[in-house]
């Protein structure tokens, strides 16, 4: 596989290093002179100096081949967006991955159909929510392309679903319970699985159906 990486900070440099170790070919574009020089010492000609939103810089770095994958990892969301758009629309790059630095900009990436995206703040917040017990329904994974998400809920004594079989629950349309974690052991949720207080349940559902799911599983 051949990948083109924009942005040579800690993230970009490590992605390049890892891809090379896995036997892939990758080139990287870095704008800052000092960073570029350091990277060039380690990686040699695979590293290019310049602004990766400039078309001639992208071409020098090999975008015309085109790469199997373009990874936009600069610290500027607008730059990452433009790099991905140019790659996809001008050079027919099939796959792009973009870093989102400010989670408020996620909606712009969605609007322009750029994805998958990776946002450190959002990932950290998902983990924080996972650790904070008062969030009774925690989003674990967003499957953008499928328009589905995976959430986790904790069943307690008061939950209307406690003591009931999965097939007796009127779950929201298009949602399913996936697994039940009980006493450290996880099992696949099937129709005959009976929910108990203390269970951690994973569910898959359409975004927007969270409240409905919460009502059926947690609060009558």
């Amino acid at each position, binding site marked *: 596989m051949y990948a083109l990486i924009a942005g040579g900070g800690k993230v970009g440099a490590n992605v390049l290093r890892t891809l090379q170790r896995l036997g892939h070919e990758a080139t990287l574009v870095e704008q800052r002179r000092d960073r570029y020089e350091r990277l060039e010492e380690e990686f040699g000609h695979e590293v290019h100096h310049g602004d990766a*939103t*400039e*078309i*001639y810089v992208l071409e020098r770095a090999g975008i015309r081949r085109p790469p199997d994958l373009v990874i936009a990892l600069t610290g*500027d*969301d*607008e*730059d990452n*967006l*433009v790099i991905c*758009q*140019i790659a996809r*629309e*001008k050079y027919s790059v099939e796959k792009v991955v973009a870093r989102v630095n400010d989670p*408020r*900009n996620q*909606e*712009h990436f969605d*609007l*322009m159909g750029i994805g998958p995206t990776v946002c450190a703040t959002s990932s950290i917040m998902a983990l924080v929510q996972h650790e904070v017990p008062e969030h009774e329904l925690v989003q674990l994974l967003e499957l953008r392309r499928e328009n589905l998400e995976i959430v986790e809920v904790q069943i307690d004594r008061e939950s209307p679903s406690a003591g009931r079989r999965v097939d007796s629950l009127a779950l929201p349309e298009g949602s399913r319970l996936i697994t039940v974690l009980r006493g450290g052991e996880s099992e696949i949720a099937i129709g005959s699985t009976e929910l108990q207080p203390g269970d951690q349940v994973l569910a898959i559902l359409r975004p927007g159906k969270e409240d409905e799911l919460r009502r059926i599983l947690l609060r009558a």
Partner: protein
Amino acid sequence: MSVRYRPGVNALVIGCGRVGSSVAVDLQASGWEVSVVDEKEEALARLGDHWRGAFVVGHGMDIQVLREAGIEGADAVVVATNGDNTNIVIGQVAQKRFDIGCTVVRILDPARAAFYRTQGLRTVCPTKTAIDELTEAVRSCEVPSQPAAR
């Protein structure tokens, strides 16, 4: 003295530098209701003493700021911050999300301006204009047919 006021003719100008502020003042002078967005409060001074439109301090990529500045009722959006890529993103947000047909975007880099024009964005590239005019100015000079020998 009469101010021509045409209700429903609203323009939003994002970026109040030399270019944005002049566009805003000109549009206001010709009867538009204009609101302006800039990250810096000091930029308001560029609009002069007679400015009677709205001025919102904030980043143009922030949807809240755009709403506050009235993008939902805008008939035209002019995007002229000092960042090409920022302008490209804001322009597309205005066009695709808020459905503003008259969205005009300043892009200094001729290559990106040309590419985004093919993508349906109305781009204005001052650099290209300068290149064309300078070249034309040189061509129209009267120069000796042979360079002077030294």
